[in-house]
């Protein structure tokens, strides 16, 4: 690489590096540092080392100022399973639809892609309130059940409502990468597989799934991450019955004035999500290599 080329690369990469450094790495470092400091009496921090923030979560505590409570691990586990469930439901809904839309004529495809991203045009809060109105027992859903002579299900303020809300807001995140992968699928391979005597299930498992795996993995990751840390959906639709770890972080900053503990919880979410993703992607990579 000539010095000129090198200089050009440095110049081209500088804005992105600077941007990520200031707006991504900077806040991250602040959270990491705060998670190991003493909480200030009125919010903020005192600059002395304090490991009890993590002790409260994982099981060591002095028992006087800080007490270990297993609720944090339990809520973390629940958040992970809510995130996973959201991914699975989104995937199940989006996968067949992606195939269907990929086969449509060009102008119809654009229309449907537009329709799927349409909800982004309205505020998230407004859309979640709309769900509150739909799910309440006297709402359209409840009325439909009553009209059919059935007892309306107790959906609002339940974990199911939280999953439903999250699936609703994250569907486009799953759909778009999935659609890109399905659209690029080499149909000749599918036909060849059938010609060579593979059953439809074999074709699906050996040809279609591996080829669309990047889309499945990409969609799953970008749904899973924000779903695990979500707090607005459980806030509006869960009513504390679908409490997630994000709500506990929010509580630390907005009512308990314990920024270091909130930071510690945030670091734990990040750590756990990272571990899950690394395991997942290395498995996915292996599966890809086998193909």
């Amino acid at each position, binding site marked *: 690489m000539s010095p000129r080329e090198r200089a050009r690369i440095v110049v081209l990469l500088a804005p992105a590096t600077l941007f990520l450094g200031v707006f991504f790495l900077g806040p991250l470092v602040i959270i990491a540092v705060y998670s190991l400091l003493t909480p200030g009496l009125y919010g903020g921090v005192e600059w002395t080392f304090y490991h009890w923030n993590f002790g409260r979560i994982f099981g060591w505590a002095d028992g006087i100022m800080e007490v270990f409570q297993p609720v944090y691990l339990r809520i973390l586990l629940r958040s992970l399973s809510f995130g996973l469930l959201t991914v699975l439901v989104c995937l199940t809904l989006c996968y067949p639809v992606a195939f269907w839309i990929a086969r449509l004529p060009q102008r119809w495809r654009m229309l449907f892609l537009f329709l799927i991203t349409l909800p982004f045009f309205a505020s998230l809060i407004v859309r979640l309130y709309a769900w509150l109105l739909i799910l309440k027992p006297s709402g359209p859903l409840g009325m439909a059940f009553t009209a059919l002579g059935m007892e309306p299900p107790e959906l609002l303020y339940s974990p199911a409502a939280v999953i439903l809300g999250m699936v609703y807001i994250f569907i486009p995140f799953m759909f778009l990468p999935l659609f890109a992968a399905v659209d690029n699928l080499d149909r000749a391979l599918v036909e060849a597989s059938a010609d060579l005597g593979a059953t439809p299930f074999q074709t699906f498992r050996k040809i279609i799934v591996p080829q669309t795996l990047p889309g499945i993995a990409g969609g799953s990751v970008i749904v899973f991450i924000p779903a695990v840390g979500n707090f607005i959906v459980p806030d509006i639709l869960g009513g504390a019955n679908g409490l997630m770890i994000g709500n506990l972080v929010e509580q630390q900053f*907005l009512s308990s004035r314990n920024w270091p503990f909130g930071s510690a919880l945030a670091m734990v979410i990040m750590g756990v999500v990272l571990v899950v993703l690394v395991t997942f992607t290395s498995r996915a990579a292996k599966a890809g290599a086998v193909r």
Partner: protein
Amino acid sequence: MKRPLLALPLALLASAASAETLALYNWGDYINPEVMTRFTAETGIEVTLDTYSSNEEMLAKIQAGATGYDIVFPSVWMQDIMVKLGLLHETRINEHPDFSRINPAFMRSKEDPDSSFCLPYAWGTVGVFYNEDITGPINGWADFFAIPERTGAKISLLDDMREVLGMGLIMTGHSVNSTDPAEIQAAADYVISQRGKVTAFTYESMALMTSGDLAAAHFFVGGHVFFLDMPNIKYVIPVEGATMYQENVCVLKDAPHKEAAQRFLEFYLQPEIAALNVSQQFNGTPNIPANQLTPDFIKNNPNVNVPDATLARLQIFEDLGAAIRVYDRAWSAIKTAQ
């Protein structure tokens, strides 16, 4: 050094835009828009309004160096903290001749006992709204928690750490400002014992009361505004005891428009203005003559214009200091109880 560097360009910008503006930072829906319109009409000063949803949110933003705001509306205990932290400007509003209209009982701040910083703004109670058609008459918390079993209807509590634990402390016979871990634990145990009857911890209960999905809800007196045409929805300040809140009008030390802010405080001393605010907000005012100027449905409503006997069973929150951590743990335990 961070703050002045940031403050300077912002202040310059603000003053360049217009010499006569005033930036309010208030709770959502906590001022009658008419009051701001009247202020602009009277003084020519343009008013902007930003909102927050908790004292802590406001404090965190001000501490983080949010500049450009002139006036905030902290609860009394938060005012105490802000005075201690040196965030407020001393307005000497108590030296204004019209200050005599303020009922001295509402000069509750420990750090500002003679109101030389802030002007007492408004106060209200936190009680129970109930749909009488479903629940029949309700007197207090015991009646409230009996509703689900008695009628099969649903009830909700506020999604608020201090309010819910405060109710638990009241029901177990302690101060809502207790810092004794055993008392706080007892309060949490009481709430957890009622947890199964509570459909949700939420602030969004008023819409569900209107639609009939909730039969009763723990809420602020200001909720009256939703039920103007629904006489079957009633409000009660529980007999066992309840909490009250009071917010004061404070000028920030970094306020870019201190003169305009001072004029707003003086403007709000007028009884007609305080009454105008109350008539839309359904809360109480510390301005004595203003209480005679409110509409009849407020003046004659003992739940809004509270008689002394009821006042005696109300408690107001104070800052908990480090004991807030005991509350935080109890609150996490309540919210995650199965």
